[in-house]
């Protein structure tokens, strides 16, 4: 990807509107799904710490 193409890395379409989201990109289809994935990862890390750190 060239630096020119990279300028569109945050281009997003939401509810019919197209705009640069600017530092709020997500790999998931919605913010809500990303929130739940973050919660899942956090719970897994917490479980790992709980079980493995004496």
């Amino acid at each position, binding site marked *: *990807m*060239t*630096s*020119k*193409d*990279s*300028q*569109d*890395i*945050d281009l997003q379409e*939401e*509810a*019919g*509107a*197209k*705009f*640069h*989201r*600017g*530092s*709020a*990109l*997500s*790999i*998931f289809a919605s*913010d*809500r799904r*990303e*929130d*739940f*994935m*973050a*919660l899942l*990862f*956090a719970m897994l*890390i*917490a479980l790992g*710490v*709980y079980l493995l*750190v*004496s």
Partner: protein
Amino acid sequence: MVYTKKNPALLIMGVIFVAIAILAGSGAADGVIGFLKIKKYVGEMVGMGYAFGAIGVLVGAWHWWGKHEEGNLDYYLSSIAGGIFILLIAMVVRWFGAPLVAVASKGLGTVMADKYLHDVLGLNYVVLGILAGIITVNVFGIPKWAENGVRLSRLGLKTGVILLGTLYSLAELAALGKLSVVMVGFFVLGAVGLVLWLGRRRKIPNSMGGVLSAGMGVCGVSATVAAAPVVQAKSVEIAYTIGTILIWGVGCMFLFPVIGHILDLGYIQFGAWAGTGILNSAQVAGAALAYQPDGIETLKVAEIFNITRVLFLPIIVLWLAVWYVRLEETTAGPQVNVGTVIFEKFPVFVLGFILMFALSSTGVFAPAQHYKGKYFDNDIAAGKLLKDEQAATLSAEAGKLQRADRKEALASLIQNRKVMTIDDETVIRGIFNANVLSKDANKILKTATKVVRHTAKKISKFRQWITLLFAFGLTGLGMQITLAAMKQAGGQPLVIGGIVGTTKAVLSLIVILLFVSETI
């Protein structure tokens, strides 16, 4: 579409991670480690080097030589290359880049009030990581194979925020919570009101004023997107708002730590200021970690303020809905259900933070009464009890104390040769903080409180995870700050945003300097 690129990049990055682990672990890099004074990172280099090196090599080999088909597996696994790309840049900056800058800066000598240039400018691994990301995306461009993974950075930040919930004690959260509700309540509602008022004065459309007020008042992009349907904002108005927020937020992220260092703000003061004055969650975290890169006390304070602000989102959306319908004088008004918008757009990760705090409060990670990751336990070895001569020193100075609680706590310490209760410990801390006794006596008291305070190992591990997640997330954040996004800003929204943002930042700083002390 197949997202995985047949490319050796991930494999090579995996090998680099492993090489760092081997060189650091075997002692072969001791010369460099000594020169850069980075011995504290050796454990991290070895552990992370092997862990992420293994992931990079295995997944990288599959990326390069494997057969890829369209689907979820391809989509999500393709992101690992970008994720490792961010992590490698973040860690190279943390382990080598920032220490090199520090060595060079120290070579120049002190520049202001016994501080080095890199301290004044806040050139630590957080700021340099974000800068590295900004330079990467705007100068070199994000490689195609890393494009999908760059989108993982916000997931890292959100996971970090949720895990932060494990670090607060009830006492800390109660004290910070009260302060943040007052500060954020006043400044968020004030900023929204000021944008709406200025918008009417400057004759911008109500939909533009509405969406800008949410962005400038609450929490950047999330609030903008949440408020947009309520005030029927057009895409160009959303773009204007996000551009304004981004320019303002990025500027603040770099400027706030410099001002904080010049004013010598304490961690609580700076965290409260950043959490109130900066708009975007990620930028709040960036500024807080930039201010205190080797600890997360500032981040903890700033995030409480940030989360409090996010909790104001439903109030603001309701306010804007009522305001918009009244001004547009149409019952049709927003063709949306406000309750649905609030439900759909409310950031669930904030609830995750509260959930993690609740879990931590049960005492599963550290005794529930822990404070800043340390807890009270006076079951100590005989060698750590007060010696006769130390007890004599304290007895000789007991007469200097006036308050009854201090006299009692000191008497109990002298009699039992150790601090007996958590309340006594608090009182004794008050004695040495008050500096009423001699230097020797204060030293004895400090040691006596220190030996009954223990670090919770699980809490320490959470701190390491949080630091890693934020370093990853903020470097990735830099890779999403494009000039194109900032160029969206302009016209009246930029002027109004600038006035309101500056007013909020300056007024909140004055309030903090006047009313917020380091000991809440």
